[in-house]
């Protein structure tokens, strides 16, 4: 009996102590371990590609699956789609028909801090920040030495670091523009605690200093391979940031902006595209006018944002999706009557070629924002090339997102000149008329020096750059976004338009972020 008990105890002890019986450590088999990933040098290139890809696609599987950010349908979560919506829908530029409450809020400027699109844009911007920080932390000299990265690849990695910092600065600019004072998280910030809120001035200073710091490590203006940043992109971001500095920190810096604008023009790297429509067509990677475009590809970069959204959503009603190289019409976006009114009416002789497609549906005025057949279809984005060939896929569009282009730079020159930033009035007139000549095909649309006023520039920006995601920023710079001075259809959720409160020039910080990060203070008014 004793013997039994003893041996039983011995066996039980052996069972508990014997580690094999209690071994629970199982490593994932179908994903890459964080300890082994950098044994391949190509990982650094894949990492910088992911920082860029954060602008272009939504996850790791293409259109659908394994999204970068959670809490929202993946299709909605594409960077440019979110940014574009926030810069466009609350303005006189475009309106969207779909019944989602969150979109109605954007259409009318009456958003709440729990609006999922605002939150998603905020997280998108900070996803870029976090990705860039990962790259910067994983590519320090000591880490590269430790992993024995060969000297030959070091210059390339130095460029990745510069690109990551520039991409981070781009997203901080977007965050500053949309949300104002946000936390400033760099590769040196502790991630074990919630980061503190920075001031708008601190964010502004950070963006400017970072862009100036990385400029020498990037290829000359126009010299980068397609899809990557060069000094032209840096100059463009700096020009935008300086130009809107009045909005951000109270003091505009038109002179510095003009310096950047002039450097872009003087480089001679870009020229106006003779064909306005090419910049929104499936072969726009060949356009000489684009300074930076977010690449899109129907086979290899699938997502439901970017130009896939812009091309599909602009089609509906009497428009035939197939004409645009698309499988479906999404019946979403129309131009609001106020922007349409800036173009000469159809049949009045002079034709502005930028007025891409005047599908006169039931009525240009909008009384029901959810009725696609009200308003003006303005489908300038297409999934066909200028030669008429369809894109590689009918669902996912090949057309790249024109983020920065020379046409915008010309209008910036004119505006900066008018605002006292330097340059000459004659040069400004030349640039504006270059755009107008392209639009009219001849000099009939040209303007004279007295006609070139700030008000004209704002209208010309609406005509030249409609549906390109600039309008909210422009209206704020002109002081017309909120308030009673400028009213448009469904502003303030009234069909005829209504006044909105000034605080709505900034979006609220997302409600979920305020909970996760107790150090943040909500923007005034929300």
């Amino acid at each position, binding site marked *: 009996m004793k013997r*039994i008990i003893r041996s039983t105890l011995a066996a039980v002890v*052996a069972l508990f102590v014997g580690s094999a019986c209690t071994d*629970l450590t199982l490593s994932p088999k179908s994903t890459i371990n964080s300890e082994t990933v950098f044994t391949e040098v190509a990982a650094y290139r894949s990492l910088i590609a*992911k920082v860029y890809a954060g602008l272009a696609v939504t996850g790791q599987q293409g259109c659908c699956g394994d999204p970068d950010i959670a809490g929202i349908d993946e299709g909605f979560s594409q960077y440019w789609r979110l940014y574009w919506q926030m810069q466009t829908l609350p303005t006189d530029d475009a309106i969207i028909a779909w019944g989602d409450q969150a979109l109605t809020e954007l259409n009318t400027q009456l958003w709440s801090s729990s609006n999922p699109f605002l939150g998603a844009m905020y997280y998108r911007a900070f996803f870029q920040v*976090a990705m860039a920080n990962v790259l910067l932390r994983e590519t320090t000299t000591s880490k590269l030495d430790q992993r024995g990265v060969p000297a030959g690849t070091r210059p390339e990695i130095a460029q990745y670091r510069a690109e990551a910092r520039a991409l981070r600065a781009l997203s901080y600019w977007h965050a500053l523009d949309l949300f104002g004072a946000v936390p400033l998280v760099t590769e040196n910030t502790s991630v074990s605690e919630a980061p503190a809120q920075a001031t708008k001035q601190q964010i502004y200073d950070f963006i400017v200093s970072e862009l100036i710091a990385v400029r020498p490590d990037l290829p000359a203006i126009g010299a980068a391979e397609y899809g990557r940043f060069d000094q032209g992109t840096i100059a463009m971001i700096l020009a935008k940031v300086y130009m809107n500095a009045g909005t951000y920190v109270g003091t505009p810096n038109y002179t510095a902006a003009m310096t950047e604008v002039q450097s872009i023009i003087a480089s001679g790297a870009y020229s106006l595209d003779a064909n306005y429509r090419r910049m929104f067509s499936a072969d726009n990677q060949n356009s000489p006018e684009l300074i930076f475009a977010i690449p899109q590809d129907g086979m290899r*970069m699938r997502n439901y944002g970017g130009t896939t959204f812009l091309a599909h959503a602009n089609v509906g009603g009497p428009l035939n999706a197939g004409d645009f190289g698309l499988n479906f019409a999404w019946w979403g976006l129309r131009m609001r009557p106020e922007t349409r009114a800036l173009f000469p009416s159809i049949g009045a002789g002079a034709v502005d070629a930028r007025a891409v497609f005047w599908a006169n549906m039931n009525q240009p005025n909008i009384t029901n924002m959810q009725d696609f057949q009200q308003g003006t279809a303005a489908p300038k984005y297409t999934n066909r090339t200028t030669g008429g060939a369809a894109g590689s896929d009918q669902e996912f569009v090949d057309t790249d997102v024109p983020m920065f282009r020379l046409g915008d730079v010309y209008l910036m020159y004119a505006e900066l000149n008018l605002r006292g930033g330097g340059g000459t009035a004659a040069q400004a007139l030349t640039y504006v008329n270059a755009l107008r000549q392209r639009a009219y095909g001849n000099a009939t649309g040209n303007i004279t020096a007295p006609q070139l006023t700030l008000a004209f520039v704002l209208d010309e920006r609406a005509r030249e750059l409609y549906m390109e995601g600039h309008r909210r920023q422009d209206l704020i710079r002109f002081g017309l976004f909120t308030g009673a001075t400028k009213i448009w259809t469904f502003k303030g959720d009234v069909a005829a338009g209504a006044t909105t409160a000034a605080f709505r020039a900034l979006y609220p910080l997302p409600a979920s972020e305020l*909970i996760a990060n107790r150090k943040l203070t909500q923007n005034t008014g929300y």
Partner: protein
Amino acid sequence: MKRYGVFALIAVLCASEPALAQSSSRIVGTVFAAEGGTPIVAAEVEVRGTGVRRVGQTRDDGRFSVPVDAGTYTVVVRRLGYAPDSAANVVVAEGATVTLSFRLRTTALQVLGVTVIGYGTQDVRNATGTVAAITPDKFNVGRVVSAEQLITAKVPGVQVIDNNEPGGGISIRIRGGTSVNASNEPLFVIDGVPLNVGGGLSSGRNPLNFLNPNDIKEVTVLRDASATAIYGSRGANGVVLITTKSGSSTEPAFTYSNSFSSSSIANRPDLLTADQFRAAVTANAPANVGTLGSANTNWLDLVTRTAGGAEHNFAASGAKEDMRYRLSLGLLNQDGILAGTNTQRVSGSASYRDVLLDDRLELSANFKGTRNSDLYSPGGTLGNAVSMDPTQAPLTAGSYFQYTNPLGPNNPLSDLALLSDEGSTFRSVGNIEAKWYFRQIEGLTGTLRSGYDYATSSRTSFSPSTAQGDIETGRTGRLDRNTPRQVNTLLEVFGNFNRQFASLESRLDLTSGYTFEEQNGDYASFFAEDLSTDLLGPNGIPLAGETRPSLSVEESRLISFFARANWTFRERYYATVSLRRDGSSRFGPDNQWGTFPSFAAGWRIRDENWFPSTRNISDLKLRYSWGVNGNQSFGNYLYVPTYTPGGAQATYQFGNQFVSTLRPSAVDPNIKWERTTANNVGLDFGFFNDRLTGALDIYNKETDDLIFSVPVPAGTTTGNFVTTNIGSMKNSGVELSLSWLVLEGRNGGWGYDAGFAISTNRNEITSISAAETDRILTGGIAGGVGSRIQVLQPGSALNSFFVYEHIKGANGQPVNGPTDLDRYVDQNADGIINQDDLRAYKDPAPRLIIGHTSTASYGNWEFSATARAYLGNHVYNNVASNLGHFSGLTQTNAPGNRHASVLETGFVNPQYFSDYYVEDASFLRLDNISAAYTFDRLMGARSVRVFGAMQNVFTFSGYSGVDPLAGVNGIDNNLFPLSRTVTAGLSLAF
């Protein structure tokens, strides 16, 4: 060394036994009930001689065997609920076997038997936990495809929710949900083999379809923490133990049964008729009048049918000395009422049990193998049928009607003809068990059990280039094939010590053991698009324009040590203590191990000496239990930081190159299991000599460390959410079960008994994050992509609806004003209707659930009926909200049919967030009725039984949708018509 330690233990125990020097004399026999002659299981057989006392127990078939030395003995047989019986002066000669036969008289009208609990069995009367066993005589009848349907409405606190499709998905909630992001389904254990959460793998229908309900002997539901704590990290949502039939000497040697059924539509979505639709288009979308046809088509009629089903079951069982076996074969072929759907099952099982080595080794084995073949309705057949224009003729001169606009629905008849979607699952579950009776220590046994669950399935959908969807999307044929495979292996070793200590007036039942479970899964899928030919159909892959193969391999491990002690003192005081220590590979090294204790006590007040010996109160037992359970049913590797490589369609363009990407994951390395702590107070009672018996239970459950995906401070990780343990919720409720023997049915007269299962449960989220005011939106709906209409927030019930308060007009209808401010109450009075005006309003959980079962007999006739009522459950009618607005007629030139509610509301634009669509879905349903007649000794058969049954006889409900039981989460997206099934069949026993 891995599992060899376990074998070593057994080897050590066995080897240390003295040589087989004992006498081969023995006392064997049987114990049967005096009335009815059924075997009495687990009766105690005490053999007493001079200075000797040996105790044996009867097995499943009422047989016992007690080895003794030569001598003279007194044999006493005892069983709760029966009067003891004894045989004195039993003389056993050296080497002889004496056979005795006992017939025990019941002392109560209803006798509760023995039921399985985790790692053992227990007398129902002695149970300290809340355990309910359902046996075949109480099972639901009719066409039952899945085991869960057998116990619908039978056990209080157990909700069984199916999706109306034969063999379709079924959800079970035991005492409400305890989780948000992990599963809320109970753990299923079949003959000791735990299945994966949710039941395991299938090609799309209910995973438990692999189990033939005809092979089931008993379904036992463990509800309170004391009963489930022995399953530790998987017990939080209750445990369902399924015991399958094994051979028994009293069972007929051959049985054959069949049944044939016919299902027809009982209720369906309320859509506009052709005339109503024509009028609606004319009034609201004059521009689209030209698109209307002149026919009068009911599209739902065209895609549904009266569906037949047939089932055949054969079983052969027998006994040879101590050996028992049972072999069975089942065939099921059931059509769905939706055209093109079908489920078939071929199932086989083999069960073996023997007692060997001088009664010291009990060996048993169970094997089941099943092939399920399923046909699914391809594409969106139902959705398309619901939204097709009813004025169009489906087929004109051999060509299908299709909308010219690709946004319109596709003709479901065309899809049915061209597309295919089929699946098959092969699954086998088995176990081998060896139980060793140690002679040196009376009452000590050791059990070694090994089991497996192997499942492989395939699901293939195919769409040829000629299908409308392909034409519209520009694809020329698509093939999608998923072929997952899972293998689970189980090794358990446990010892049991069960002995009466007369001097201490006690009985001790101790169990302790070790289990090792490993799960391996590989999940392969293949997608091909732009096929060069349609001719291979779903059976081959021609040259394809685009292919996407994928493979993911996962494994997980669960290792446990457990112990349980049951102590019975003076046959009226009971105590149970159990402890389980679980280790799971799903968590990081610091959180792998968790401890799950439980405690329970019982007091049979009725048996106190001071209790009046009235037969009117025949039983009274008070129970209390406390225990901690866990939930670990979510993904593997959540704690491991990894880099995910991007796919070929998620690259980034550098010049002319498309570079693959890498993304680091955002994880919480400290993630651990959800923990539920539960208290239960119960009262078991019997009145009028146990003519009326029942149990009343009151419980509360508090779940902490709920796993939530929570927002993290932006910029700190690559991702805005991290899955971590943060929330908590509680459930509390009252359950009452009653069994009332109204008429005993003596001498072929009327017999009638009635059962009730009544329960309430209240759920409340107590926190979901660090912030009191935080809320998480859930409940995605159809329409308005990304719209969610339910909320998790502290103070509200799980998945409360989160909607606007619709202003009601004088007629009680929702106001249909021009702006949101006209329609909805501005809760925060800021003059704006936006997300801040949504509020939590009602929730999907029923306040009260009542299940009722009636069984009656007269002579050879038997009748039964099962009914169910839910009170206070609310459903969001998503079919109405998605289709109940006129803008669907104007938004495109492909106007689709509308839900009839639009005629009342007149909504132009969808009002997804209106509380108008949150409806009270209380209902009363007669789930099934049946009648059966048994012939004695007809044409040489031992018995011939014929039966007829009707399922889903009627439903009374104020709910406007198809089925008030639409989905466990209360969002009614269900287009599937409700069916009524009539079944008839016979069974023969030889």
